[in-house]
């Protein structure tokens, strides 16, 4: 089991990094031939950075759209961020002071994350419009996150696992040596779910995370009259004449 999970983690990380890098590269090299910011839009680069920060940190547009979706979505994402940061302790030695500090908050965040996920799933199941647009993968994606959150919380509140051993396992992985892992079913479920998440990330709607930074309606400066914007393929049309 140790060796299998270790190999899976290596493969999954490889797929995640390569897949994501490839996708981001595609976004970066695909031109945006026209100025299409959704106006009113900032007229300076600084303004665009602020707009993007509000979008990524506060989910500004979603806030305008629907308070329930915003509340549940923000709760889920913010809690998950805290939970991920809390997990840094498995990968660094010695553990940084601020990571030590957030440990207890990370527990509450785990619960909040689960609540957010359940709320989002309820919305998907019971709101007619959202049910109509949901594909099986939309439901499964939520289920996967719920599995990760529940198994994680269970190791805190129901069946403790040997976190020291887990840390040794991951420290070992980082130095290409396979160390023993506690043979707990819940732990294996938790880690296996994370492997799946890493693998599907670059090939699924989870691409919304890098995608938002490349969205022309949000990242373009509104200065079309002041500065000529032209893509390489469009500029070619001018030299052809």
């Amino acid at each position, binding site marked *: 089991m140790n060796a299998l999970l270790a190999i899976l983690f290596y493969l999954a990380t490889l797929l995640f990094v390569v897949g994501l890098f490839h996708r981001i590269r595609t976004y970066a090299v695909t031109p945006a031939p026209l100025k299409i910011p959704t*106006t009113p*839009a900032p007229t300076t680069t600084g303004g665009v950075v602020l707009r993007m920060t509000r979008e990524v940190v506060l989910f500004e547009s979603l806030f*305008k759209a629907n308070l329930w979706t915003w509340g549940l979505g923000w709760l889920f994402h913010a809690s998950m961020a805290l939970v991920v940061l809390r997990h840094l302790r498995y990968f660094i030695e010695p553990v940084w002071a601020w990571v030590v500090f957030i440990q207890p908050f990370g527990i509450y965040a785990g619960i909040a994350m689960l609540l957010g996920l359940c709320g989002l799933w309820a919305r998907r199941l019971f709101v007619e419009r*959202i049910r109509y647009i949901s*594909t099986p*993968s939309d439901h499964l994606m939520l289920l996967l996150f719920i599995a990760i959150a529940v198994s994680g919380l269970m190791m805190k509140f129901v069946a403790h696992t040997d976190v020291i051993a887990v840390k040794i396992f991951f420290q070992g992985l980082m130095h290409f040596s396979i160390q023993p892992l506690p043979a707990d079913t819940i732990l294996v479920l938790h880690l296996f779910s994370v492997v799946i998440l890493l693998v599907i990330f670059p*090939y699924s709607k989870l691409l919304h995370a890098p995608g938002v930074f490349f969205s022309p309606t949000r990242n373009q400066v509104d200065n079309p009259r002041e500065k*000529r914007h032209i893509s390489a393929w*469009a500029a070619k049309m001018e030299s052809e004449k």
Partner: protein
Amino acid sequence: MADITPPAYRSFPIIPKLIPGAMEGKGPFVASDKINEAIGFPGHLVDDWHDKAIAKMGDLLSKYRSLKVYMDACVHCGACSDKCHYFIGTQDPKNMPVARQDLMRSIYRRYFTLPGKLFPKLVGARDLTREVLDEWHNYFHQCSECRRCSVFCPYGIDTAEITMAAREILDSVGYGQKYSIEIIGKVHRIGNNLGLPAPALIDTLEGLEEDVKEATGIDVRFPIDVKGAEVLLITPSADFFAEPHIDSLIGYAKVFHATGTSWTLSSMSSEAGNFGMFIGNYDQLRKIALRIREAALELGVKRIVVGECGHAWRVAYSFWNTLSGVGDGADPNDRFAQMLQKQLDHRYRQPTHICEFTWDMIQDERLEFDKSANDNLIITFHDSCNVARGSSMGGYPGGQFDIPRNIIRAVANNYVDMDPSTTHERTFCCGGGGGLLTDDLIDVRVKGALPRMEVLQQVTDMHKVNFMACICAICKAQFTKIMPIYGFDRRMVGGVHQLVSNAIVLGKNK
């Protein structure tokens, strides 16, 4: 017309129930061989349409970052699902922006992503069949590219970009829409969307000079093809003869007259509208925009001013600099753009919206108004979608909302805003934009106007509003046609410069 009944107002704006299949159908008329071939599209549906369509989609995905990112990024959160006026008016779930996008996203996933190739059912992917193509033709012509959904999407996904891509794919296999393609043919052949030839145009303008002289006793000119004029006015061709558009044209002429501005129209380039945007075709978008460049170079003008038209202003403001060099800030080595930019006077924004022009003149105290001339009117303002969400005015974010309102307040005493959830960047499309202003789509046009009609009814009930000003030729045409169906007087709609025209004091050149 008589048998068309509008949908009932919602008692308060609640989210409507879904009626699957409510708007199923054939969609708008398909372009004929002659119309298609006139602008280089295949005459009719080609035999190998499946492969051609997929190839075209791949081509667009490599050319437009918007399309690529938007195909990937949607998480089906539903933020947009109740924001489209066509969904609100028709209750057809495929008119929810996300569902409209999914009509294409399902194909993208099948042919361009690994999970869609391996597990199509799981991720909602499907093969491109003839039924899908028909569905595209129908539902991608129930979108007016108004961008309201993009305001609310957490990733800024703009359904307009996807509609444009879908229409371009349809055009590339000979299955495009008659109305838009026919009009593009007219622009190239005659010079404007309405097919008004130069002699008729000159005749119309002479008639207008006589009319204004009769009404005011003043010789207001409507010059055309005047070399060396300072300002070239590019305005939607509807302004030349349609009601109420023409009253705004008279307004522009009076503003130019009162400020002593030398100006001209162009018979070769007598159209601000650019239907190339509606069909998402960069080549057409560019060719149509180049007509304005040509006219500007030929007439040697220093400024280019654009009349009241929504999508035309989006194209002019956001795209002209890119497409034709009408603007500022081209690279010194960019000979194509510099050729024109050297000629233009960069003390002014290029291009300038007529509202920017008039508001600047008001601020410089070069115009005088008798506001009481508009006292019979209680006015509200409909933000046209493409002006609101695809452009700006005045050089600061939100100028596109303030400046038209400032002008109205400067020329009239009675002004009220409509419900704020339906104005500014949250405004609703009139229901006829984006290439839908055609009688074969009257059903969706009437239904799509519902949210605007509801709030107009509110302000008529509460404040006795009897005039809705707007700055778009399509809004004006759409509203005059569908408002009687909702029980309003068609004369309730008009341009901002119609109000300017009513109140302006002439005969005292400052």
